[in-house]
C-alpha cells in the first residue's frame, strides 16, 4: 500500500544529459530537513486550519442527522452509519454514482485527455499565429467563469432559438432534455481540455526528437511511435493529468448550471446530488455522508491510476 501511494519517479527523463545530472544529490541547495520543514510549514498550517479541520468536520457531520432547519437543526443526534446505509440503499444515489462515472469517463478521461493530447500532438511542431489562436481559444474556454460559460451553452443548446439547432437545421431538438448526459459531457470536454492540452504540450516538448527520428527511420508507424517512444516519456504526466482532472470532474458542480440535474435526475451527477441534498433540501448530515463516500471513491480511483501507470515500469 505504502509503495503504491508513492508517486511516479520524480526525476523525469528530461533529455540526453539527464543521466549525468542524476549524479547530483537531489537536495542541491542544501536545505536540510529542518529548513525544508520551515518551507512547508506555512502552507501546511493554512491547509490544516482551512482544509483538514473542516474536512474532518464534514466527515463527522456525516454521522449526524443534522439539518439546516427544523428540530434536527436545534438538536442534532448522532446516528452512526445511518446516513451511509441510507445512501447505499437509495437507488437515486447509485444512479448518481453511475452518471458520475459516465461523466468522468466521457468528459475527462476520454474527452479532455484525448482531445487535449490530439491538439498538443498536432500543434507540436507549429509556431506562429494559428497555433496561438487555437491554444488561446481552448484556454479561453477554461478560464471564463462557469456562470458565464454555462449560460453560453444554455443559449447554444436552446431548443427553439439555439445556435446549434440553427446551424444543423434541426429546430426544436431538445439537447438538454433528450441527451442530457451527452450535453454535459461535451460541455465539460469543451470547458476542461485546456489543462490537458497544456500539460501534454509541455510533456511532448520533453520527448527527445532524436528518439522519434530513429523510430521513424526504423519504419515505425505513427501509432507505434506514440506507443513506443512518446508514451514512455510522458507516463508521469499522464498520471498527474488523469489524477487531477478525474478528481476535478468528479466534484464538478457546473452541470447543475446547464441542466439542474434534470430532466428527472437524468444528469444528476454526485456533485449536483450533494448540492440538492445539502442546499436545496437542507439535509446536511446526509449530504456530508455522500461527500465522504465521494472522497472514498476518489481514493479508489487514485490508487487505480497509480497502479495502472506504475505497473509497466
Amino acid at each position: 500500500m505504502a509503495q503504491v501511494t508513492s508517486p511516479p519517479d520524480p526525476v523525469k527523463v528530461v533529455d540526453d544529459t539527464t543521466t549525468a545530472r542524476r549524479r547530483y544529490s537531489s537536495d542541491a541547495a542544501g536545505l536540510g530537513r529542518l529548513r525544508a520543514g520551515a518551507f512547508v510549514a506555512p502552507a501546511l498550517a493554512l491547509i490544516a486550519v482551512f482544509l483538514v479541520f473542516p474536512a474532518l468536520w464534514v466527515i463527522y457531520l456525516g454521522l449526524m442527522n443534522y439539518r439546516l432547519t427544523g428540530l434536527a437543526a436545534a438538536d442534532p443526534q448522532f446516528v452512526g452509519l445511518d446516513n451511509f446505509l441510507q445512501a447505499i440503499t437509495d437507488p437515486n444515489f447509485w444512479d448518481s454514482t453511475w452518471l458520475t462515472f459516465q461523466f468522468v469517463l466521457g468528459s475527462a478521461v476520454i474527452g479532455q485527455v484525448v482531445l487535449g493530447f490530439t491538439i498538443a500532438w498536432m500543434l507540436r511542431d507549429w509556431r506562429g499565429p494559428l497555433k496561438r489562436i487555437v491554444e488561446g481559444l481552448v484556454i479561453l474556454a477554461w478560464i471564463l467563469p462557469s456562470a458565464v460559460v454555462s449560460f453560453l451553452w444554455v443559449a447554444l443548446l436552446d431548443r427553439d432559438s439555439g445556435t446549434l439547432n440553427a446551424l444543423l437545421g434541426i429546430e426544436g431538438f431538445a439537447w438538454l432534455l433528450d441527451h442530457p448526459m451527452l450535453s454535459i459531457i461535451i460541455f465539460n470536454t469543451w470547458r476542461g481540455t485546456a489543462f490537458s492540452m497544456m500539460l501534454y504540450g509541455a510533456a511532448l516538448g520533453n520527448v527527445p526528437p532524436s528518439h522519434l527520428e530513429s523510430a521513424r527511420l526504423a519504419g515505425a508507424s505513427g501509432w507505434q511511435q506514440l506507443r513506443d517512444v512518446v508514451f514512455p516519456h510522458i507516463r508521469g504526466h499522464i498520471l498527474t493529468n488523469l489524477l487531477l482532472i478525474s478528481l476535478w470532474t468528479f466534484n464538478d458542480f457546473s452541470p447543475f448550471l446547464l441542466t439542474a440535474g434534470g430532466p428527472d435526475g437524468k444528469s444528476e451527477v454526485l456533485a449536483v446530488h450533494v448540492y440538492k441534498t445539502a442546499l436545496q433540501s437542507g439535509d446536511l448530515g446526509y449530504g456530508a455522508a455522500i461527500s465522504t463516500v465521494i472522497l472514498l471513491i476518489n481514493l479508489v480511483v487514485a490508487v487505480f491510476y497509480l497502479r495502472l501507470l506504475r505497473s509497466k515500469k
Partner: protein
Amino acid sequence: MTRFVAGRIGFYTLIAVLLAFFTIPLLWLATAPFTSDPTYEVRVPDFTFENFQMIIDHPYALWSLVNSLVLSIGTALLVVVLSALAAYALSRVRLPGRDALLYALLLLSSIITGTAAMVPLFQLAIELNLIDSHTGLILILSGGLLPAAIFMIKDFMDSTPKSYEESARVFGASPLQIVAHVVVPLVRPGLATIAVWTVANVWGNFLMPYLLLSDVEKQPAAVIMYTLYTEGGQANLKVLSTFGLLYSIPVVLMYLFVSKKYGFRFHGGIKR
C-alpha cells in the same frame, strides 16, 4: 504525394472543426451585449451601448469586479508563494510520509470545494472572526486550492536541473535566496500557470463569497451575476449578457498579460 496532400487536407479539416467547436459557443457573448433586445439566438447586433450604460448605472456591478480582483489576486499570491515554497522543499528533501500526505490532502481538497463543507467553513469563519472579511475568504479559498497547486508545482520543481542550485550554493547563497533567484526564474511559467488557474477558480466561485460576506459592497462579481434574475427566476438577458462580458474580460486580460510576460505553459524551464 497524394497521401501527403490528403494528410494535409485532413489536418486542416480537423483544425477547422476544432476552431469551430471552441468558437461557436462564445459567439453569443460577443453579440448579445451589443444587441438591444437579445434572445438566445446569435444575431448580428445593432451595436447599441445602452446595455453597458445599464451596467455602469448599476449600484454594485463595477465595484463587484474590483472585489473579484482583490479576492482572486490575493488568493493567487498566497497560493503561489506558499505552494512554491512547499513544493520546492518537498521536491528536494524527502520528508517522511511526504507522498501519502500529498495525496491525502489532494483528496481532502475535493470535500472542501463541495457544497457539504459550507456549514463547517461558515462556523469556522465565525469562530475565527473571519466573517464578512476579504482576508478570511482568501484564507479559506487558499486552503482548498493549495494541495492541487503544490502537487502541480512539485512536478515542475522535480524536473528542473539541480546544477544551478549547487553553483549558487557554492557562492554562498542562502536557501531562500536560491529559491528566489535560481529556482523561481526556472519555473516561472509554471507559477504563472498556477496563478491563472487560481484566479480562474476564485473568479467563478459563488457560494463561499455569498455565504461568508454579508456586506454587498464586498461581494465579488460571481455573486452579483446571480442577482441579475427576477423574482420569478427569469434572466434579464440584456444585463446578464453585458455583465457576463465585463465579468469575463478581466480574466482574459490577466491571462494575456501573464502569458506575454512570463510564458504560460507547464515545464517551460527545462526547454533547451
